[in-house]
């Protein structure tokens, strides 16, 4: 798993690639928390090169979404969710908790 964070004018674009499981999810959580600690609550998570995500990754997304949406100060959205990961998110009933966008330009533009 690799994470790159880009601080843009209206939101942070966090790209997570590779595989997120119980071993790598803590680093993913940390990247999301770091954005929040910097006072950034508008976050787009780019999943276009994500190969795999288990419920450990879902947990990280859920915690970040709660933190972002608190006091209506922001939101976390998902970008280019690969089909297998989308199916797992659907199975977990998670798709209704996150807005999703097909590409990062549209997602960034939504903030």
């Amino acid at each position, binding site marked *: 798993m690799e994470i790159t964070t880009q601080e843009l004018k209206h939101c942070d674009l966090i790209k997570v690639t590779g*595989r997120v*499981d*119980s*071993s790598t999810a803590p680093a993913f959580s940390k990247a999301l928390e770091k954005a929040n600690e910097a006072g950034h609550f508008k976050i787009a998570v780019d999943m276009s090169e994500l190969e*795999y995500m*288990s*419920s*450990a990754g*879902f*947990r990280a997304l*859920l915690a970040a*979404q*709660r933190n972002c*949406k608190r006091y209506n100060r922001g939101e976390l959205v998902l970008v280019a969710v690969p089909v*297998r990961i989308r*199916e*797992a998110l659907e*199975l*977990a*009933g998670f798709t209704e*908790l996150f807005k999703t966008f097909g590409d990062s330009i549209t997602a960034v533009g939504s903030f």
Partner: protein
Amino acid sequence: MTFPAKFEFLDEIREFIAEIARKGGFTEKEIYSLQLAADEAATNIIEHAYEGVSNGYLNVTCDMVGNRLTITMRDTGKPFDPSKVKQPNLKADLSDRQIGGLGVYLMRKLMDEVRYESNSKTGNLLTMTKRRG
């Protein structure tokens, strides 16, 4: 195949399952499901059965019989029965959403059958099966 009961080995466990499933003619979608179910099962064993234990082992088998793939996981940790885990409320609001129990829920949804046996002598045995197609 025996793996150390550590999260760092989840990758290898998923690869082990995928290789056998691929040879068994499962589709990529089904292979992803099998990997996710095995990951969630192994994660629960590492997290709950081996809670506070750093040198535990996990014995994983994966076999095709006819058009069915059977995954077993054996551990010698504390009994952890996935069927006793409460089903998460998948309709709850963001603030009430519980993440606990999600792994077990996914295992049950992704596999055709999930069985659990605990034996004080031989340890815990989780058996999961999925039909191809």
